[in-house]
C-alpha cells in the first residue's frame, strides 16, 4: 500500500508542476495549450545538459552539485524560451492563444524528439533510448534518515528534492495569488484587463511574467519526469499525456494550486491503479487510465452547473487585450 501511494505521488509530481505553471498562466488570462510541448522541452533540455556533462567529465568524475545544477539550468532556459515565444505571440502580437499553444506543443514535441534522437545516435547504442543513470542518481537522492522513520518516513520523507520543490511552489503560488498585492493585480489582469489597465496596472508586464514563470515551472515537470520518474531514461515519445493531464488538472482543481497538490496525487493514483488490480485485461487497464479525463469532465460540468463565480475560469481567459478596442 505504501509503495502504491509513493508511486502515485511520484507520478503526480510532473502533473503538479504542469498544473501550477498553467494555473499561474491562466490567472493572467492566457490559456497556454503549449504546456505539453513546454514540459517536453523542459525534459529534453535537462537531458541535453546532463548528457554533455556526463560525457564531458566521464561518469566517475561527476560532482553532485553540478550534476543537478546543469540539467536544471538547461531545463529552465529551455522552457523560458518557450514561454517567451508564447508570450510574444499572444501578448505582443495578440495571436490566437489556442492556435499558438497547440503549435508550441507540436513544435516542442518535435524538437524534443529531434534532439533525443540525435543524442541516442551520438552514443552509437543499439537501444532506442538514452540512459543518464549517474545524473539521475543525484536527482533521486532523498533524505538519508527517511528509511529509519518507519511508515512516516516512507510516506513523507523518501522523495527527491524536486518533489518538495513542486509542493512548495504550489503552496507559494496559492499564497501569492490569494494574499499579496501582486496576486491581486495578476488576478485582476486575468479577470478584466481593461479595469486593471485603468487602475494603472502594467497589464502586458504581468502577462509576460506570469506566462514565463508558468512555463518554467511546467518545464520542471518535464525534467522531473525524465530524471526521477523514469530514472534518467529518455526515449522519444515516452512522455505520454502528462502535459494534457496537467491542463485537465487545472480545471479539476478549479484554478487553485493548493488543491492541486492533492489533485495531482489522485491523478497519479488513477494512472497506476490498474497495475495493482489483478485479473484486469488490456481493455480494463485502458478504461481505468481514462478515469482522470472523465473525472475532469464531470468536475467541469458540476462547476459550470453550480455557477459559483469563484470556481469559474478567469473571465478574460483566452481573450487578447488591446487598449483601444472597445
Amino acid at each position, binding site marked *: 500500500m505504501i509503495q502504491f501511494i509513493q508511486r502515485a505521488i511520484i507520478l503526480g509530481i510532473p502533473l503538479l508542476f504542469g498544473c501550477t505553471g498553467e494555473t499561474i498562466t491562466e490567472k493572467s488570462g492566457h490559456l497556454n495549450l503549449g504546456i505539453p510541448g513546454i514540459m517536453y522541452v523542459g525534459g529534453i533540455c535537462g537531458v541535453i545538459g546532463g548528457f554533455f556533462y556526463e560525457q564531458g567529465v566521464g561518469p566517475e568524475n561527476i560532482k553532485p552539485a553540478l550534476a543537478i545544477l546543469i540539467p536544471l539550468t538547461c531545463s529552465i532556459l529551455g522552457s523560458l524560451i518557450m514561454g517567451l515565444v508564447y508570450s510574444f505571440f499572444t501578448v505582443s502580437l495578440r495571436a490566437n492563444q489556442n492556435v499558438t499553444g497547440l503549435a508550441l506543443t507540436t513544435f516542442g514535441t518535435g524538437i524534443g524528439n529531434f534532439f533525443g534522437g540525435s543524442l541516442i545516435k551520438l552514443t552509437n547504442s543499439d537501444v532506442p533510448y538514452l540512459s543518464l543513470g549517474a545524473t539521475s542518481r543525484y536527482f533521486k537522492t532523498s533524505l538519508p534518515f527517511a528509511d529509519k522513520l518507519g511508515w512516516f518516513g516512507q510516506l513523507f520523507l523518501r522523495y527527491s528534492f524536486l518533489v518538495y520543490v513542486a509542493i512548495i511552489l504550489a503552496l507559494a503560488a496559492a499564497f501569492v495569488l490569494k494574499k499579496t498585492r501582486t496576486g491581486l493585480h495578476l488576478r485582476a489582469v486575468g*479577470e478584466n484587463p481593461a479595469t486593471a489597465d*485603468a*487602475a*494603472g496596472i502594467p497589464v502586458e508586464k504581468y502577462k509576460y511574467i506570469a506566462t514565463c514563470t508558468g512555463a518554467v515551472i511546467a518545464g520542471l515537470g518535464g525534467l522531473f519526469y525524465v530524471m526521477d520518474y523514469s530514472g534518467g531514461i529518455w526515449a522519444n515519445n515516452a512522455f505520454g499525456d502528462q502535459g494534457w493531464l496537467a491542463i485537465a488538472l487545472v480545471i479539476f482543481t478549479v484554478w487553485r494550486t493548493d488543491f492541486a497538490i492533492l489533485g495531482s496525487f489522485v491523478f497519479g493514483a488513477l494512472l497506476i491503479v490498474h497495475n495493482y488490480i489483478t485479473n484486469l485485461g488490456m481493455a480494463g487497464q485502458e478504461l481505468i487510465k481514462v478515469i482522470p479525463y472523465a473525472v475532469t469532465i464531470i468536475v467541469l460540468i458540476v462547476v459550470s452547473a453550480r455557477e459559483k*463565480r*469563484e470556481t469559474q475560469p478567469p*473571465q478574460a481567459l483566452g481573450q487578447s487585450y488591446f487598449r483601444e478596442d472597445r
Partner: protein
Amino acid sequence: MNTIPAIELRHISKRFGPVLANSDINMTVNYGEILSILGENGSGKTTLMNMVAGIYFPDEGEILVNGEEVKITSPRDAFQYKIGMIHQHFKLVDVFTAAENIVLGLKEDGKYDIKAAANKVREISSQYGFEIDPDKKIYEMSVSEKQTVEIIKVLYRGADILMLDEPTAVLTPQEIRKLFAVLNRMKEDGKAIVIITHKLNEVMEISDRVTVLRKGEYVGTVETDETNENELTEMMVGKKISLNIERTDPKDPVERLIVAHLNVMNREGMKVLDDISFVANAGEILGIAGISGSGQRELLETIAGLQPIQYGGIQYIRPGDGVIENLRDKTPKEIRDLGVRLSFVPEDRLGMGLVGSMDIIDNMLLRSYRQGRSVFLKKKEPESLADRIIRDLEVATPSNRTPVRRLSGGNVQKVLVGREIAAAPTVLMAAYPVRGLDINSSYMIYHLLNEQKENGVAVIFVGEDLDVLLALSDRILVIGRGHVTGIVDARTASKEEIGLLMTKGGHAS
C-alpha cells in the same frame, strides 16, 4: 470657504477627427459646491470632464487646478491633483470584493493588508453615510452598490474633486435620494462635486450652479436659485433650426400597429417599459424622442419579438384584409415574416444585424437564406440586391465582396438600412439610422424613410436630434424613463415642449 476655484477651464477645445466635441469652453468649479453640467446627448459634457480626468487631452486651452495651470495626461495624474471621476460604465472586477477593487492598482507602502483596507472603507462609508459591505463580491451587488464602490474608490485615493457621469441613469428613485444625501454631505465636507446630467428635475434639486452645453459649445452658467426648468430647457435645446426635409401629408393613414399597456422588465428585473400605449399608422412616420436609454431600444425589440412581455399587447393589423394578429404570441421570425422589420443602429454600429467580417453579399444572404430550398447557397439574388443597394444608396465600397467591417460607419449603415427596406416591410422601425453620418448620407436616409412612408409603410423612427424629429415625423411619441410622457403633432410642437417632456420621466421621479 476656499475662494480659489477647484478647477478652472480656459478656452478648452477638443476635436475627434472632423467632429468638434468641445469648442472654446470656459467654466469654473468651486470647493463646497455641486455643479451640474447640463446638455443633450452629444453636447460634449462627458468629453469635457474626461479631459479633466486625464482620459483625453485637450487640443487647445488650459486647465487650472487650485489656481495653477496643470497638464493632466492620465487618470493617475488626475489623482495626483485629487481629482476623481466616476464613469457611467463601472470599471470593477466582478469576482473581487469591494475592498479588493478599491485598493486595486494602488501603490501603498507596507504590507498588503486587505483587512486594514476594509476598515478604511468602513470609515469612509460611515463618514459620508454609504451603506456598503467591503467584503461583498461585486457580482453579488446591485448597480447602486457598484456605484458606491466606485465613489469610495475615488475617496479612498483622497480625491477632493469628484466628477460623476450620469450617476442617476441607472438608479431607482430611492437610490437617487440616498446618493444625493451623500453628495450633499461631501459638499458640506468642502469637496467640489460635478455631476453630468440631462435630467432637469435633478439639476434643480441637487446643484448650486448649472453650466449648460449645447453641441459642444458653452451656453452659459446660472445659479440654480435664479433659474427655472423652462429657462434651462431653452438653454439646452436652443432655438429651432429649420431643416430642409420634405414632408408630405400622410396619405389615408390606417392603423397598422396598436401597442397597449406594454410592460417589460430587463434581465436585472428592472422595469424598462411601463404602461406604453400608442398607435402607429400606415403611411406615416412616428418619431420617438427621448433621452438615450429611456426604453427606446427595448420598445423596438419588444415589437420585434426579442423581449418577453410582462403585461400588455401588440396588435398588428394586416394590410388589405384588416385581419388582426397578436404579436405577443409570435416568434421573432413570424413577426419578421409579417413584414415588421427592425433596423437598429447601435452605438458600435456593427453590434446588431451585420457580420463585420462577411462581405455585403453574404450580409444580404443573412436575411434571406431561409427562402432557399437546395443545400447550396444561391448567391445570384443577394448579389443583385447588394449591387442595387451600392448603386442606389451610393455606398462607397471597393466591391460587393468587401467585408463590411472595412467600410466607413456611414456606409455600413446604408447597407443595414438598405437591406431592411429591400425586404418590402409593412412596418419599418429605424433606430438611430443616421447615427454618426455626415449631412448628405443623413439626408439620403431621411429620403428613404419618406419614400417608405409614401409607399404606405408604417415608419417608426427613433432619433436623437430633435430638429430632425420635428422636421421628418408626422407625430412624435416622447418617452422618459420607460413611460410615455406625451404624443405630439410634429407640425405644431415646439422644441422646448418636447425637451420638457423628455426630461419629465413619468411618476418615477
